[in-house]
């Protein structure tokens, strides 16, 4: 094997590992959204279902969280983009000796931990309210203790720095002569800003807005302090993780991932199409000749993938109208019940044997190995607590031995075991 081929193969392997590391979790998470199992899991696969999207839609806390996240996101975009733009323009105007100091000052909020920003925002506005003598219940006091107001300010304090970095990069390519030319032609400073600089900055404003919105949407550590009595998507999710999650979170993740991929592909398709038109205009490429594909798709893989994705989406929606997982669910439940019955039987037999042997050897407090094996199935990350057998034992009877396996408790106790609910319904 030549070394060239070796390099190529190892590069391929590396890429596969890299992308599975990058995208694997997203794929697994997306799959869990379609499993009817009550805890987000892929294996064991129960039934293919869309029900978690329904659960998600009916979850008012998440809906409310998204709503406020969007409101705060838009507020943060407006505030941080304008602050960032102003800061970057000042950077180009400020006295050269002072420039690096100013830059460090402006960039500092990125380095400050979000938690500190959150707490200080909260404390600052509270004290400011006190200082201004705003009594409880007055309008000013209400504003200074309003979660949305505080969160927008708290997030903007560092997101504005990100926005500024985007603007500075663009501004470096701006020819100040253009502003002078506009002034020379009779424009006021405002007109020169609005008609020359702002159009030039438009692409940077767009990307800074997207960046600011995403940074705001996913922010947790600042928000959790400043949000007070409101909730955003991140704080709702954090709460849910504490109190118990179900695959509706995966459904949300799936929606977000799909939207992101769609947006990225649509943008890429648009961009390539633009570049192509430009090339045709300059006579560097031939105008497209008619083929089977519509013109905007030729030589544009992004557009083709985009259309395929749209096709898949239509198929999914179509099947959702027809397909019902109820039949499958009933089967799974019956299978489970049968399994449980079998286990109980096994257990009873074991106990019978055990009690006979105990009668000879005396009680064994630490539990014999046989009891550990009662779960039967591989236990996985949560140390066997979710094994369907555990709780059925609990529910089944008052044997104290059943307590033993749950002693190796995982993070969420036993609450997420898929069989919980089944048992509830069953009994």
């Amino acid at each position, binding site marked *: 094997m030549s070394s060239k081929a070796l390099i190529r193969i190892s590069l391929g392997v590396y890429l596969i590992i890299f992308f599975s590391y990058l995208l694997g979790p997203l794929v697994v998470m997306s799959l869990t959204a379609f499993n009817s199992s009550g805890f987000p899991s892929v294996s064991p696969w129960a039934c293919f279902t869309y029900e978690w999207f329904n659960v998600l839609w009916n979850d008012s806390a998440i809906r409310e969280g998204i709503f406020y996240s969007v409101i705060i996101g838009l507020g943060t975009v407006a505030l941080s983009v304008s602050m960032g733009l102003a800061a970057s323009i000042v950077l180009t105007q400020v006295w050269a000796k002072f420039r690096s100091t100013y830059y460090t000052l402006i960039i500092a909020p990125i380095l400050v931990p979000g938690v500190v920003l959150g707490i200080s925002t909260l404390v600052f506005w509270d004290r400011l309210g006190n200082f201004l003598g705003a009594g409880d219940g007055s309008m000013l006091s209400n504003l200074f203790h309003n979660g949305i107001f505080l969160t927008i300010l708290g997030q903007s304090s560092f997101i504005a720095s990100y926005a500024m970095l985007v603007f500075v990069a663009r501004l470096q390519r701006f020819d100040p002569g253009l502003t*002078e030319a506009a*002034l020379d032609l*009779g424009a006021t400073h405002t007109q020169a800003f609005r008609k020359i600089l702002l159009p030039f900055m438009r692409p940077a404003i767009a990307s800074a807005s997207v960046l600011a919105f995403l940074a705001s949407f996913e922010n947790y550590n600042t928000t959790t302090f400043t949000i007070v009595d409101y909730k955003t998507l991140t704080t709702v999710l954090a709460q849910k993780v504490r109190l118990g999650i179900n695959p509706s979170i995966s459904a949300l993740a799936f929606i977000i991932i799909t939207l992101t991929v769609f947006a990225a592909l649509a943008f890429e398709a648009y961009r390539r199409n633009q570049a192509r038109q430009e090339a045709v205009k300059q006579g560097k490429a031939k105008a497209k000749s008619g083929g089977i594909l519509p013109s905007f798709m030729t030589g544009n893989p992004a557009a083709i993938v985009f259309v395929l994705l749209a096709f898949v989406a239509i198929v999914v929606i179509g099947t959702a109208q027809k397909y019902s997982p109820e039949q499958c669910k009933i089967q799974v439940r019956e299978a489970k019940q049968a399994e449980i019955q079998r286990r109980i039987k096994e257990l009873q037999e074991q106990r019978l044997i055990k009690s006979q042997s105990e009668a000879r050897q005396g009680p064994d407090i630490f539990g014999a190995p046989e009891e550990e094996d009662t779960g039967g199935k591989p236990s996985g990350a949560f140390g066997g607590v979710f094994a369907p057998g555990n709780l059925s034992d609990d529910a089944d009877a008052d044997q104290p031995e059943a307590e033993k396996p749950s002693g190796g408790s995982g993070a969420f106790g036993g609450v997420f075991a898929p069989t919980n609910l089944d048992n509830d319904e069953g009994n």
Partner: protein
Amino acid sequence: MGSGVAVDLENVWIRFGDFVAVREANVHINGGEFFSFLGPSGCGKTTILRAVSGFLEPSDGRVLIGGNDMAGIGPNKRPTALIFQNLALFPLMKIWENISFSMEVTGASARERRKRADELLDMIALEGQGDKLPSELSGGQKQRVAIARALCANPDVLLLDEPLSALDLKLRQHMRTELREIQQRVGITFIYITHDQGEALTMSDSVAVMKAGVIDQIDTGHNVYDNPATPFVASFVGENNVFRGKIKSISGEEAVIGTNRSGDLLARVTPTQVGKLGVGDDAMMFIRPEALELGSNSGNDKTTISANVVNEEFEGNSFSVFLEGDGGKLIKMAVPNVGQDHITGRGENLSLHYDVNNAVVMPAGELASE
């Protein structure tokens, strides 16, 4: 179109911290004149232009346009339009929007603006190109668009900051003629900044030659070339041979200068320095390469130079012959190409003569660096 308006600089000083960019500039520019500031880069000519257009205020002195003091009046309020060195066309606007920008800011309707832009596009011979972007035009076309954009503002004074420096030679020569024609057509005052003496001489009514913030001479192109006021002007504008020495005798407007290598030479005292030279003063004499002729001047050895040939170069329209001169400097002489193979051999001793009218002498001073 605006009519020509006079521009005056009265005792203008411009300082940046300790650095003096412009020292005591006194310039009168007539209305409707094509006036050039000529000087090497960094001599302060662009600074003067910025003071006229209003981007900076003089540290001292006054700038007057049409007799009105411009102190405190911003660039957007002055009756001037500036054509930038890099043209500064707005890259995101179409050509017609670029041209009519000065109307847009005063609130003219799109239709009016389009109409005016189309008129100006006709004038600069770019009909039907109004909907292109600046990036789609060639260098010369952009140049003309920049001129049209400036003219659209109906300025009284058009300021041009080395607008031709980015063009190639042929286009530059073409644009010179074109600029001159436009200036004569619109009749407004043009102030032109350049370091290219060819541009200044071909286009201008008057030329101001600058050196390190100081204006050495203001005169017509012809006078600047033939009667330079200082050694700097003599050596910066066109090519010149310099002979250093001391004045031996003066009679009226003629003087004899004693040089080391070439002996005593007779020359005309440059008009602005008549009466300022005394016997024994350090002086410099300048003779243009094209004023030297082969052969000795019978009867007058004071207008004859004898020297050894160092090198000969063929330049197409002429031969340049380099001879050993004063202080290691070569004497350059231009012989028109009228079909001869070559002029002379290396090392040959030649006698050259010149007409006294073509040699100027003046007090010694700083030369332009080469």
